[in-house]
């Protein structure tokens, strides 16, 4: 158990350090959400929705968490391939999922930069007070959401590997998931069929829980759904990783870029 925890911690910390040194990744997870936050502030101001400024700030941060999860997890196995570290990782005794899952959680954790950055930016530049209705719940909902997104990242990372142009797919999925999960636009404005899609996405429930903690409401039901979906993603991710590993071993294609 201690070994598993140690492996988890080391993999998570290592990937965090690696991602933090990437200028492109830092731009994606810090600067891009600030640009979206600025756009949302001015848009809501122009639409005379001053009460929604903290909403804009928080939403831009949550959008950033999804972006860093998507771009980080989408390429997590490919990057190991390019670096030549995938073979030793697969050959190592621990199950593959115990190595990949902390890496995808790290990509979601980088999203904390987005959230912290946009809230701080809103406070300093636009003077938006950070008045949270349930601050304790807020602190609880954030890590739960991040772990659930990390689990979703595991599914993304293990399925994108079969798609040669995984980064192109990641480029495409940023906006639709923002829309479908109600990251900034309420789901009530979207067509009814979108709601079914949103239910199976953990970010929907995670974002809902974070908002309930920040603006009032009961975050527990959404948080519960987030945990349930996170566990389901882990199971799906495990199956995908096994398929990938078996195929790659059979075809001797593990190190092929």
């Amino acid at each position: 158990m201690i070994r598993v925890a140690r492996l988890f911690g080391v993999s998570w910390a290592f990937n965090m350090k690696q991602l933090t040194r990437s200028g492109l990744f830092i731009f994606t997870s810090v600067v891009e959400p600030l640009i979206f936050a600025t756009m949302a502030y001015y848009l809501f101001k122009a639409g005379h929705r001053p009460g929604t400024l903290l909403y804009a700030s928080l939403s831009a941060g949550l959008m950033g968490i999804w972006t860093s999860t998507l771009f980080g997890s989408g390429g997590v196995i490919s990057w190991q391939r390019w670096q030549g570290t995938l073979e030793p990782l697969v050959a190592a005794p621990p199950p593959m999922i115990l190595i990949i899952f902390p890496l995808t959680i790290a990509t979601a954790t980088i999203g904390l930069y987005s959230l912290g950055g946009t809230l701080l930016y809103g406070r300093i530049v636009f003077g938006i007070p950070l008045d949270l209705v349930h601050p304790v719940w807020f602190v609880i909902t954030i890590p739960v959401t991040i772990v659930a997104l990390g689990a979703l990242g595991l599914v993304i990372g293990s399925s994108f590997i079969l798609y040669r142009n995984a980064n192109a797919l990641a480029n495409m999925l940023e906006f639709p998931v923002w829309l479908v999960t109600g990251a900034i636009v309420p789901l009530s404005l979207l067509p009814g069929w979108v709601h079914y899609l949103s239910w199976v996405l953990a970010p929907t429930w995670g974002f809902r829980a974070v908002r309930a903690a920040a603006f009032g409401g009961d975050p527990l039901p959404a948080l519960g759904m987030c945990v349930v979906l996170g566990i389901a993603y882990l199971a799906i991710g495990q199956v995908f990783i096994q398929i990938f590993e078996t195929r790659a071993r059979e075809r001797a294609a593990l190190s092929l870029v």
Partner: protein
Amino acid sequence: MRNALRIFTIGGVLSYRALFSWQSPTYYIPTMLGHPLFQVLFFAYLGRFSNVRNDSFFVVGNAVQVCAMAGVYGMAMTIGGERWTQTLSPLLASPANRFALFLGRALPQIANGFVVSAFGFLVGRLFLNFHPPASAIAPLALVVLVSTASCTAFGLVIGALGLRLRDVFTVANPAYFILLLFCGVNVPLYALPQWMQTVASGLPLTHGIAAARAVAAGAPLSSVDGLIGKELAVGACYAVLAYVLLRIFEVEGRRRASLELI
């Protein structure tokens, strides 16, 4: 002159074909069509929620801006990528006319950007409340073409910077999002602070988007000729700046023997 023309056309087409992944539908469709599709939809719904303007405002703004997918990223990869693929040294060792060499690389991206923008408008027409009069289509196409050319000149500057930087995307990504924020794509210019409006007037797409909105609403082309002229002037300035930067970086790269550094 004939040689320069050959380098301009054939060289440009070959450089576009050298973006190997872009030849594949599995890359092109998600990046060049999927991303614009969802960008237009996302901002149109955000616009509905914010109560600022109607769908048409957001469709036109985003459909014009998505030309930057080709204009900015395409140019960044075409010019900046020469170093990555180790073709920069032989290219600069050749006696080819530099103006024809680099401007030729912009031509296919202008065509590609136009297609991407047209797709953005189609998305607005099919899925959103955007119904321009049929008489507006030809003037709109002209405005989009001018805007795409101007944006590609801006992309040429980004590509030039890519000759110096380790990763061209550290400039290309911010450039794309700066256009999204400053150029009145989603936030009306009057709602931005004065300094942002000043910056916007010197960026590509700002005047083009304003012209496109007027034309899509049924205004005659003659009423926006001033805006089109400004868009062309801004594009020309970026083209000259890109040429100067490319020459400076070429000389610097030779002096410091850094052309092949990745």
